[in-house]
């Protein structure tokens, strides 16, 4: 018996040792690269996922906005999704990256915002905390803005409470169901996020894929412009330009180059407030060309003509300095917002001064003549024409059409001809709202667009 006992002993000792140390032993994480995001650095890392997620924007609108055309053979090789966007087809897609990707951005922001709220209150007023929180709010607002342009009707002052906006998830709980909000709620949410973000953000972000105060103000100006709140937009645009108003002098660029604009990361583009791009490389294709009327509207001496377009009328003017369309924020857009709002509020002189300040950097040296307008209406027309010419290829036209079509004097009918069949999109047409994809609507909470 004695022997038996002495042998049972190590068995028991081993057992106790195993039991005793199991806490540490089992706490080892299974994958080295895995993290449970809990620190400010973790949250920043989630927002730094720029190229693959956070700094991308939907591209459907550049297929639909009429500024660009596809050759018939190019059209024939396109995916069903792209063909449908191009001819404003009524058929919903099974799945749509233009819907899913912005919501992935929103989810990431919500994870960050929920996580920030759980951090120790002592950290709350540190610059890093504020910057992470401001960035998350900005990215969320940017995603909501993109979604609203694609899937909601235009904001119509006075009746904005009627139409259906977009679902607005504000927590990182994937099981919560979010029906569509109203258009008013959607825009109020965007403004609210941005107004919260602006004081938290740094004046100058570390890199341009991350937002700073000027970016938040520029997006506020863009959003209020979409809401036709011109005094509001004017005030945001002015605040933005007060912080950053540099313009790139186009006369310093080589028009012959296939990519005339400076690489925003390697060389820097002084106009850039926030970097985002569309994940589509149409512009490298010579069969995807600019609308000929638009092309003809550039005067000779206007450097945008040779800098933006190749000889085959293909677009090469992306601020991304590669084949991907730029979808971020820049000072030239803010100048145009300021000018338009000045004109809309009757200040035609100031409006033209702002416009000319920008145009001066767009023309060849010594060939620029300042534009003049005798009335606010005339100023507005000139500014809107320049707006279209300046911002072509940036996905801005779609939001402008939605807004400007409400005014009969600027309303436009878009048409396409494919295989002798004519497709049209009238002002206020249903297809100014893209259909929500089937893999969203089948679940029942989110109502399909008409």
């Amino acid at each position, binding site marked *: 018996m004695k022997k038996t006992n002495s042998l049972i002993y190590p068995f028991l000792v081993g057992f106790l040792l195993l039991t005793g140390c199991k*806490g540490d032993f089992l706490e080892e994480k299974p994958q080295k690269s895995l993290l449970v995001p809990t620190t400010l650095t973790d949250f920043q890392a989630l927002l730094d996922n720029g190229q693959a997620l956070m700094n991308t924007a939907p591209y459907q609108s550049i297929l639909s906005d009429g500024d660009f055309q596809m050759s018939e053979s190019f059209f024939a090789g396109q995916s069903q999704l792209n063909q449908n966007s191009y001819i404003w087809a009524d058929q919903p897609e099974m799945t749509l990256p233009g819907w899913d990707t912005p919501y992935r951005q929103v989810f990431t922001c919500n994870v960050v915002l929920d996580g920030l709220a759980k951090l120790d209150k002592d950290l709350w007023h540190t610059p890093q905390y504020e910057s992470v929180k401001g960035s998350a709010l900005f990215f969320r607002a940017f995603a909501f803005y993109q979604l609203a342009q694609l899937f909601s009707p235009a904001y119509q002052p006075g009746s904005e409470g009627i139409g259906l906006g977009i679902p607005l998830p504000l927590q990182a709980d994937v099981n919560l169901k979010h029906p569509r909000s109203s258009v008013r709620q959607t825009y109020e949410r965007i403004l609210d996020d941005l107004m919260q973000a602006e004081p938290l953000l740094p004046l100058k972000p570390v890199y341009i894929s991350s937002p700073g105060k000027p970016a938040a103000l520029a997006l506020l100006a863009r959003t209020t412009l979409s809401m036709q709140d011109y005094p509001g937009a004017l005030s945001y645009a002015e605040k933005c330009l007060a912080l950053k108003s540099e313009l790139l002098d186009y006369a310093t660029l080589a028009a012959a180059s296939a990519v005339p604009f400076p690489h925003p990361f390697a060389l820097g583009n002084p106009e850039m407030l926030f970097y985002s791009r569309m994940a589509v490389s149409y512009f490298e294709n010579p069969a995807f060309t600019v609308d000929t009327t638009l092309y003809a509207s550039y005067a000779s001496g206007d450097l945008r003509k040779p800098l933006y377009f190749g000889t085959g009328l293909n677009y090469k003017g992306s601020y991304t300095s590669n*084949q991907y369309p730029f979808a971020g924020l820049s000072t030239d857009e803010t100048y145009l917002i300021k000018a338009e709002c000045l004109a809309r509020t009757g200040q035609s002189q100031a409006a033209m001064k702002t416009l000319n300040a920008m145009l001066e950097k767009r023309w060849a040296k010594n060939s620029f003549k300042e534009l003049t307008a005798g009335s606010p209406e005339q100023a507005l027309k000139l500014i809107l024409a320049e707006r279209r010419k300046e911002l072509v290829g940036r996905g801005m036209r779609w939001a402008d059409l939605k807004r400007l079509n409400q005014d009969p004097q600027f309303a436009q009918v878009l048409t396409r001809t494919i295989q002798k069949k004519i497709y049209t999109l009238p002002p206020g047409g249903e297809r100014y709202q893209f259909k929500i994809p089937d893999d969203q609507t089948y679940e029942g909470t989110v109502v399909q667009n008409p």
Partner: protein
Amino acid sequence: MKTILKTGWLLIIHLGLIFSARAQTILAGRVVSLPDSAALAGAVIKIKGFDQGVTTDENGRFRLAVSQNQFSIQVSYIGYKSIEKPLAAPFDRELVLALAADENQLGEVVVSTGYQQIPKERATGSFSTVGNGLLNRRVSTDIISRLDDVVPGLINNRGKGGAQGLLIRGQSTINSAARPLIVIDNFPYEGDLASINPNDIENVTVLKDAAAGSIWGSRAGNGVIVITTKKGSGDRGPQITVNSNVTIGQRPDLFYQSRMSSADFIENERLLFESGRYSSAEKNVNRYPFTPVVELLMAVRDKAITKDQAEFELSALKSKDLRHDYEKYLYQPSVSQQYAIGLRGGAASNRYYISAGYDQNRPSETANRYARFTVNANNTYQVGKNLEINAGINYSESKITTANLGPVTYTNPLTGFTGAALYPYASLADPDGNPLAVINEYRLSFLEQSEKKGLLDWQYRPLQEMKLAHNIIKLTDYRFNVALDYKLRPALHLKALYQYSRGISQGRNLSSQDSYMTRNLVNRLTSIDSTGALKRNLPLGAILDQTASEYNSHNLRTQLDFDHSFKAGGELTAIAGFEIRDLGTSTSRNRFYGYDDEFATSKAVDYLTPNRSFVNPASNIRVPFVDAQTGATDRYLSYYANGSYILRKKYIVSASARLDQSNLFGVSTNDKGVPLYSAGVAWNLSEESFYRASWLPYLKLRSTFGYSGNSNKNVSAFTTASFQGTDLYSGATYATIQNPPNPELRWEKVQTVNFAVDFESRNRVFSGSLEYYLKKGIDLIGSMPYPGSSGVKSFTGNYASTAGQGMDLTLNARVLDKVFKWHLDLLFSRATDKVTNYALTSLTNSYLGSGDGTSIYPLEGRPLYAVYSLDWAGLDPVTGDPQGYLNGEISKDYAAIFRIAPQQMHYHGPARPKMFGSVRNSFSWRSLTLSVNVNYRLGHYYRAKSMSYTELNNGLVVHGDYALRWQKPGDELITSVPSKPQSVNGNRENFYAFSQVLVKKADNIRLQDVNLSYNLKRSQRGKSGFQSAQLYLYANNVAILWKASKGNLDPDYPLAMFTPVRTLSAGIKLDL
């Protein structure tokens, strides 16, 4: 780890201190065969309850020291039925023990669970054992394929994606690992199974139900395969076994899949060209390549050559077929050689097994090579009377050379798709066999212009690439085992086992400067300044890619074994123990640019600065940075106990329990563990006094119930993210969210109920077993599609459950058993599974496209992998359009048809066989044995590929059904291939691809393999120097005997480029 070491040392110290001695007497005896009373040399005699034993000498004699007066001895000899005999003192006479021949190796008596050895008669659970004889019936480099057709319930599935692979009794999980747990020498094996030499395997036990498998707890849900390697045998001189064989395989048939003819392909290219399809691609800034035919047509258009010249060249191309070149240059008859030598022997105090093996394979793919070298040494020492120490080392080294490119691809200019199959009229070599260039990524004219500007040769010559290839993986794998077995008392043993195993796979892929990969990258990273001077942003020289992956596994187990017979006629066998496992795995990958292999030097590069691509200056290109590392740790702590009680040899009760804890990430501590248990009963009916059926002297009923589990480390209760590297924009390290939080996460469980009957007729004219089982997968982890607005497209949680049931029948018959013997071994298994709970449904499209294995789309009430289709209403007699049904009406509204509810799809059946098994007939006459194995797989379906006008419209090579397309009214009576549409409609194409008309029954019966062997008899061996010799011939993949569907396709390989080649092996096995 500290703990493991501590415990181990404590054990060793304590074990070393204790010895004891008792009075011994000698038992002498002789083992003979029945009925001829010939001496059996090498039979093993053991005292029951003791692991050590002695073996008989040349005359069949043995001497055994015994210290008890009353005990049972067990006598076993390979090929003979073991016996057990109770003995009582005195032992003054020589004992004669007679054994009857047992040619059925499946009737092997002892099963191994990896924790203990159990005599099969005493088991309640479902075990199958494959002995050495049956394992060696097949000739192969690997071990796992030798389990095909010999284990009821086990199938190696073909098919797509997840539906592929080894399964035991169906699948009871959706998202977790579905493969059986593989155990080698008592511990789970984490390395590459290809590194195991089958010549070193003694036997394999497959654990199928909860009672058998639940000892393995949370990893046993899919069954367990327990592999035991050869060990020494006691009390005999050294015995050397030599096995050598060579296997020759046919050249693969590249014409297996139907494909459109070169002439049709060229005609299509002409039509596309004429319709202007290439005009935008011609201007594409990516300089997409055009096939020679399109280039010819463009040259005619541009008046560079005359129409007649072009037509002359076109007609020459029409007769070419690339597949001839593939057969000639890319594939070859395979040759595999296998050599193995083993030395086995021992005395009472020391038993040993030492072996070495070498395999060298020349696969069907030209220029590829495989070689494996294995060495094993295993020693068992008897230290004193009570302590047995076993130590072993297994070492394996393999070298895999991959130089074959496989079928050549190029970038399709109309879609930008980089993996398009090369045009069918391409030639890989000139008539003298010199490598020819084919198009790859860029247009020929662009390449020529670039070369003039001073860039490197930019042509792509596939055969030259094969010659330049230097892509080698070296795999080293070793296991070190030590096991102590200390007898505390006759009934109580204490065991401590430790295993360390490690595997390292090192890859070295050297792309010399002459290789296309290097030349292409250097060229793309070249810029030309305004003076025309070249600037190379990537240094010249080779590119060396090195990969390494390794695992390190420590396992320590301490266990008490109890075995005691009670006076009342009962016997209790029980084990209890605990186990600790730590598995670390890591991978790394790095690349050197400007590498010079002679001096092993490389050059620094700038990874960060974007350079203008030479091909498309509007796009940026950086020097690719591919370096990466990963690391993972799996840790388990387990406590287990298992016992069985046998009363009067008639009634058996068994029970097993296990608690597993692991570092499953993020689950709160309570849920980290999962307790699992099982229980079983068995009744030896034939032992009852009322049992009268003398024709069936053995009849046993048994039943078990219990739980095992599946673990899944890819889920977590918390939000998890993982670091991905450096964002190209900000340069910051970024992370992506992997997993939204799921606080309700639990472990998966599998519940199994098993009923079985074992039977054996008099003289074993027939014997076998019939088992019926029910399996339930509970709390299964499932990925569920989520609406996009949630921010995730799918979410993983314990949503699902499955139910499976089936039966396994084993029947062995001795139809003739005289001089001419005819034995029949029949296996029949039925295994079905279905999803019983799955919260959400996906889009109909997903089930159709991916439900058969490509991806996982479970649908309630259906098998996990099922084949669905859309109802087919034939071709429109006027237009040749495919027609389906919508709301019961014939319809061509394809988009609407795709919107039907998933329940309205046509369900054909599972993608994996419902029924399978084998019939093996063995005939022997004197020294000759012929064994013919026919297997069958029934009740499954596959979707045949047909032609796609989308692909045709993109100038791709399409299926040969193109020639069978509807062309004029009336064709709908003889074909179901739709007409060529005016403009391609994606939904029309998809409708046809997923229509009922393309789904086929996959049932088939095939003559899998034949083994013919010749054994040199005793009388012939005499002076020739060897004890016995066997010459064998083996043919595998012989023929399909029957299949349910017509056509050329092998239903188990409908998508393969070619079917497994027929092989013939010849070999010799010598016992010296």
